[in-house]
């Protein structure tokens, strides 16, 4: 074939592929937002669901989601940051480092349903915590650990060596340098990691439904079951309870995810602008 013609055809083909991809995204988000936004109101956010979610709002699911996020972050943030510090500042190479890196990668590759099965077998049954915020939060903590470690690690790697050396030269110990110099400089990156983790936790449904259950009441303690927003959307739609409420819940979820993306991008760009 004529190379010029071939070139034209392929360019057109690739443009079509790209536009199709873009169109799909626009179709999904556009459809949900255009149907869901008009249904949103303050009442929807501030009222608890009534008659299985057919009436009322989503307050109890928002509270359950917040509890789940809180439990998982309390565990994952310190461990993730500690792990990142160890990997970047203490153990720079060696077998152990490779093993830790491999397991963190593997953890990231495990699908959420496996976390769900594990959480159900271990927390819910073996440790007899039952379907509860605690079981769900702990399971989520394991799920978001790789995100946290990876972003914190990247952030700490990007702290320039001259800063660290300056601190060490002034007589600060390694740990003083980390607390006083490395972590503060890496803070925007660490916060990005926390935000991304929150995004993942908000969107998760398979692991949550298996560990925190799907009871609609407002959880009063860590040992109460709860239904997160994502699980609520699933039940509303899959059981055909109310498509209107499902649209509205989906819209809230999408808005949250857009905010999470926006915040993470903003922080990353600012950090990049500052370091370069």
């Amino acid at each position: 074939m004529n190379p010029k013609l071939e070139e034209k055809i392929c360019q057109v083909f690739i443009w079509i592929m790209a536009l199709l991809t873009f169109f799909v995204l626009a179709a999904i988000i556009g459809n949900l937002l255009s149907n869901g936004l008009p249904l949103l109101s303050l009442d929807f956010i501030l009222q608890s669901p009534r008659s299985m979610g057919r009436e009322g709002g989503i307050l109890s699911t928002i509270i359950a989601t917040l509890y789940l996020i809180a439990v998982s972050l309390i565990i994952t943030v310190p461990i993730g940051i500690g792990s990142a510090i160890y990997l970047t500042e203490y153990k720079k190479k060696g077998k152990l480092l490779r093993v830790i890196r491999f397991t963190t990668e593997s953890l990231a590759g495990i699908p959420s349903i496996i976390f769900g099965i594990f959480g159900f077998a271990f927390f819910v049954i073996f440790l007899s915590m039952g379907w509860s915020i605690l079981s769900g939060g702990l399971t989520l903590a394991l799920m978001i650990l790789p995100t946290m470690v990876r972003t914190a690690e990247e952030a700490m790697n990007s702290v320039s060596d001259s800063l660290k050396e300056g601190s060490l030269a002034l007589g600060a110990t390694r740990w003083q340098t980390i607390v006083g110099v490395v972590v503060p400089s890496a803070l925007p990156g660490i916060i990005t990691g926390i935000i991304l983790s929150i995004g993942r936790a908000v969107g998760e449904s398979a692991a949550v439904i298996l560990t925190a259950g799907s009871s609609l009441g407002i959880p009063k303690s860590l040992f109460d079951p709860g239904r997160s927003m994502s699980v609520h959307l699933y039940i509303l739609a899959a059981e055909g309870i109310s498509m209107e409420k499902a649209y509205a819940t989906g819209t809230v979820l999408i808005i949250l995810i857009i905010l999470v993306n926006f915040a993470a991008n903003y922080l990353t760009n600012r950090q990049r602008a500052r370091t370069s």
Partner: protein
Amino acid sequence: MNNFLSNIGLHYKRGAASLRGQVKLFNQKTYENMVEKVLFLCGAFSILAVFIITFFVFYSGLPLIYRTGIGNFIFNSQWAPLQGVFGILPMIMGSIMVTLGALVIAVPLGLGGAIFLAEFAPKIVTRIFRPAIQLLAGIPSVVYGFWGLIILVPFLRGYFGGSGFSALAGSIILAIMILPTIINISEDSIISIPREYKEGSLALGATRWQTLKHVLLPCARPGVITGIVLGMGRAIGETMAIIMVTGNVASLPGSILDPVRTLTGNIVIEIGYAHGDHQDALFATGAVLFIFIMVLNLLVNLRLKKEGDA
């Protein structure tokens, strides 16, 4: 005498001071060591997590597989948990079917998108496209499932007849969900090819497409394959979006328009009310799924290692 006494006092003071210094130094050292130990524990936490997850998934799943016999569990096409018949062949086929279907759709689209972003897109388009892809990756799977349920399934019902809940619907939803993975990783590997390769090819008079076909794509192949395998892992493990559009019928599918149930769907749908052997059979389903995922992860890791050596 006075002089002597004051001398002793001085010595004593000096001694105490240096002793105090030593104590402080000692404390600081133990403190630093303790910190390192704590940080090590944080680092080792992920090792522990992977170990305990693997252990518990198999510990809860293997006994039933052992009791029914592995062949009988995997190759039996009948799933009748209330009669105590546990065969997960339909679910294995269902998972394989939707995953392959998703790849057939997503690989050309994803590659096209990656090439577009890396080579053809004007800067302003890239600036919109990249965050859009990132957003696509962050949208929760239930939201995709919901969209599939209200838009895609009725569309397929109108177009092909039947219920619309089908392996095809699952494949399309999965394809959309794994697109970001394939695009991102393929694009990265195309961009990371040294510029000289491309410039050399163009300087020899090759067109952009010829350069792409004969130089860039062969160089980017390992990265592209990694992206596809990772996408495949994501597809086979996806749960909530899939169960909302595939119909979840636990029998062998005849065509892609038939409803199917995946391994993941089998677990979520029945675990709420399962007891005894039935519950164990669901754990066993999880164990089989976990093996699929481990094999895929292993492939990616071997691949990455090979790349690292080369």
